[in-house]
């Protein structure tokens, strides 16, 4: 069919960073299109540099292309100059693999990792000449299917999408492919019939098949419209990561992107139980990759890609039970001696610093930790149970081993946070600098603070977000205190962006009109400070008679219907509520990998278990819970059996 490359070539000289649009990565799969195949256009609705490294998209790209009845290509949101050029030259949104118009694909699959990209989703659809509202799409139009963490509350985009997938995508893409294929081979007469069929696939939510019911402006239920439609859509979970060694051929871009290195996922899920963390809650249980598979993926990946850096990815890599073995083997295997290993999301303790010291033999520039809150009381509230002893032991260990800079991540605007708690952030940083002075001449600590936005399927889903004014006041408080602290640098996230994120995060179907309004007013790339404009959001809310107080700032009540109550991440709502009450009482909860099950629902509901390589907690303690000192107890895990 058609490639628009000849026309694109003509305008690429006139746009910034044309490298974004050419594809040609090392590892690309030449698409073999055929009318009898289901074609997917996997789109990351942000810039190429942000979207290309996305592992979820690359995993699906390979799995779909391995099927004989399907083909997948990729696309990324065109930057504003490119979007304008496309409109001027009457060219459509296109794939980067073979530069085909998006509209020629059967399925437009969007990865939604952040709420503020939603307006880009509309921009991509509009550029593709696909009606932005699902209600206006014809049988010949592509299906718009979204996945990623944001889809745990798909209601704000319910009017724009045909379906949302909850949870791991590895298996469900095949279910969807087969369903669409059957429909393609039939008369393709009615879109309604296929939407109803999609709605019966486990893990697939079709907004069209559900009706929200309001009582005096209040959402009271979202119910299935058809007899065969399930009342609750449960997430999909792959039980064993070892069966999915993807991506097998990680794409190596020709231009620099974020996370530009080999990425190997060592486990999925997290049971630390930080109460603000949506990723940790919705991806349970923990599923570790066998250490020898990790080793193979690293070795093959490095040889194939030419990268000199590998990142072991997960939500908390130091918790991987095979971490010491993998790190040691990787460094021993690499014959050139230039390979570096990076661990994102370091746990805060001396053991972790030990691993970091091993892998960063040469370049010890900076270490990043995320204590998230300044005071111990606050850390009990959020269940990030890092004791001061652990933290300062880690800091001591880092400075004594040659690191000179430390970066600490925090949240502000957390439940029950007082000014004392807020200011404790800077006090903690000051103490770190003091510790550093005993080892270094001018140690520096960078404090990076973001405003907290409550997310669905977390214990904090009932919490009323701090107002912009209040967040701003806290940031000023921190900034002033940091100014008088030598060695402490202070950075913060724009508090206005937290408001827009808050509107969408827990919004219902009525927020769709707001997203559309913002997009129509030119509000694209809202993740980017040069394009973000809070006024567009607040004006749109006002225009549609919706209030920030109602959607963002108010505390929600125990028995009110939440816009995602018809969806499930396996977590029992009463477990989340109990956690919310415990948070308010500053009572912590231990990591369930090393303690008896407390039945959050994520394992028991689906008949699955944690998959870890060892029943022993990793050495070095468990973030102050004292669990590191326990002997092995009976825990609900199955063993990968490949490591000792």
């Amino acid at each position, binding site marked *: 069919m058609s490639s628009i490359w000849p026309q694109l070539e003509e305008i690429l*000289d006139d746009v910034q960073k044309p*490298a974004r*649009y*050419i594809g*040609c990565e090392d590892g690309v799969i030449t698409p073999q299109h055929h009318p009898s195949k289901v074609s997917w256009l996997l789109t990351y609705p942000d810039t190429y540099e942000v979207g290309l490294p996305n592992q979820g998209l690359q995993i699906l790209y390979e799995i779909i292309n391995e099927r004989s009845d399907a083909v997948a290509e990729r696309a990324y949101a065109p930057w504003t100059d490119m979007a304008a050029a496309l409109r001027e030259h009457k060219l459509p949104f296109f794939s980067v693999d073979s530069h085909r118009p998006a509209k020629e694909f059967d399925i437009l699959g969007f990865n939604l990792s952040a709420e503020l990209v939603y307006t880009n989703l509309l921009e991509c659809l509009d550029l593709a000449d696909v009606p932005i509202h699902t209600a206006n799409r014809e049988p010949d139009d592509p299906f718009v299917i979204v996945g990623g963490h944001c889809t745990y509350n798909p209601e704000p985009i319910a009017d724009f999408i045909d379906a949302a997938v909850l949870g791991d995508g590895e298996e469900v893409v095949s279910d969807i492919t087969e369903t669409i294929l059957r429909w393609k081979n039939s008369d393709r007469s009615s879109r309604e019939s296929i939407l109803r069929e999609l709605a019966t696939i486990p893990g697939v939510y079709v907004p069209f098949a559900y009706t929200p019911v309001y009582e005096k402006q209040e959402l009271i239920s979202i119910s299935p419209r058809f007899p065969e439609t399930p009342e609750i859509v449960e997430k999909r979970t792959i039980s064993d990561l070892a069966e999915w060694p993807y991506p097998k051929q990680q794409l190596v871009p*020709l*231009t620099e992107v974020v996370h530009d290195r080999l990425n190997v996922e060592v486990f999925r899920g997290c049971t630390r139980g930080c109460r603000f963390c949506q990723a940790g809650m919705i991806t349970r249980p923990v599923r570790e990759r066998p250490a020898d598979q990790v080793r193979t993926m690293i070795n093959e990946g490095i040889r*194939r890609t030419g990268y000199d850096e590998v990142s072991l990815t997960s939500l908390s890599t130091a918790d991987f039970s095979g971490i010491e073995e993998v790190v040691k083997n990787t460094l021993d295997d690499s014959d050139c001696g*230039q390979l570096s290993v990076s661990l994102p999301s370091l746990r805060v303790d001396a053991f972790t610093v030990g691993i970091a010291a091993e892998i960063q033999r040469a370049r010890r520039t900076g270490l990043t930790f995320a204590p998230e809150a300044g005071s111990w009381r606050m850390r009990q509230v959020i269940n990030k149970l890092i004791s001061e002893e652990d933290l300062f032991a880690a800091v001591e260990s880092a400075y004594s081993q040659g690191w000179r800079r430390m970066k600490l991540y925090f949240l502000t605007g957390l439940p029950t946070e007082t000014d004392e708690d807020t200011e404790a952030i800077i006090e903690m940083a000051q103490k770190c600098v003091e510790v550093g002075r005993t080892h270094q001449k001018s140690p520096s600590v960078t404090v990076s603070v973001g405003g907290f936005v409550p997310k669905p399927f977390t214990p904090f889903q009932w919490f009323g977000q701090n107002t912009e004014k209040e967040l701003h006041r806290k940031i000023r408080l921190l900034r002033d205190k940091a100014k008088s602290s030598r060695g402490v640098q202070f950075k913060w996230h724009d508090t206005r962006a937290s408001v827009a994120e808050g509107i969408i995060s827990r919004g219902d179907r009525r927020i769709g009109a707001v997203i559309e309004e913002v997009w129509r007013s030119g509000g694209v790339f809202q993740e980017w400070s040069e394009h973000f404009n809070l006024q567009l959001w607040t004006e749109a809310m006002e225009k549609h008679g919706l209030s920030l107080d109602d959607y963002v700032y108010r505390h929600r009540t125990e028995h009110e219907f939440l816009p995602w109550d018809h969806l499930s991440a396996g977590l029992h709502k009463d477990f989340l509520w109990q956690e919310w009450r415990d948070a308010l009482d500053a009572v912590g909860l231990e990591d369930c990998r090393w303690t008896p099950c407390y039945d959050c629902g994520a394992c028991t509901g689906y008949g699955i278990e944690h998959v870890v390589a060892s029943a022993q907690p990793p050495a070095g303690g468990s973030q102050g819970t004292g669990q590191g000192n326990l002997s092995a107890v009976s825990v609900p895990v199955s063993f990968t059996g490949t490591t000792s």
Partner: protein
Amino acid sequence: MKKIRIRFSKKGKIRFISHRDIARIWERALRKAQIKIAYSEGFSPRPKISFGLALPTGNESEAEYLDLELETLIKNDPDELDEIKQKINSALPMGLEVQSVAIKKEGSESLQQSVTSCTWQFDLHGYNTDEANQWLEKILESSEIVVERERKGKVVVEDLRKQVISIEVIGETDTGVRVQADLGTKPRTLRPSELLAASNPPLKARNVCRMNQWMLQGDERVEPLLNNDAPAPSARLADVIRRELKNVRTNGQAHEIGPSQRRISRSKTKT
């Protein structure tokens, strides 16, 4: 001897990759090809690769260069050098291709220092030969072409005319004419796009390709390294191209032309 000089081409979609990204691609390709490069000492070791003059993003090239220092000594053995070429070519992405590899003489100047001019080809759309010749004459007859540029926050006045060594129309294409120009690189490389933007009215260069880079050896200009895969460029190059262009027009189908004449089809889509 540890240092080698490499000549390579950059064609097709990859022309939209910037000079800086090309450097990163080379580092990865050399690791993939398991060519052991020497690293600099110090806190943050860097591979010892030095690139020649940057090629503007979007332009193609038949003559790019880089020098690199190997970890171990290498003999001046054609087979060994050819093996390096093959290894690298299997690791480079489509569009980048090594043409020649040679030992770099000890003490010879760096590429950046020694190259004094480049030969470029580009297309002007919507012009016939007469119109294009009038435009060229205007450039050649003017005593100066002054432009103002901002450099590090300051306005700098430059005379581009001094940099134009020669310029001529070498044939017609389907949509206009093809021009060949020798432009100086000292003190700064003059790009075809800059020269065209400075004309009145401003013009846009299409299908820009760097054909040669030149350094001076006494009074004679020579290339830093010949392309082993192609006959040496001669003064009669323009005639050859004219002949090719005629073929294009007669055939109407550029891609049917033989491989030795691919220069003409370089602007066509490679998918």
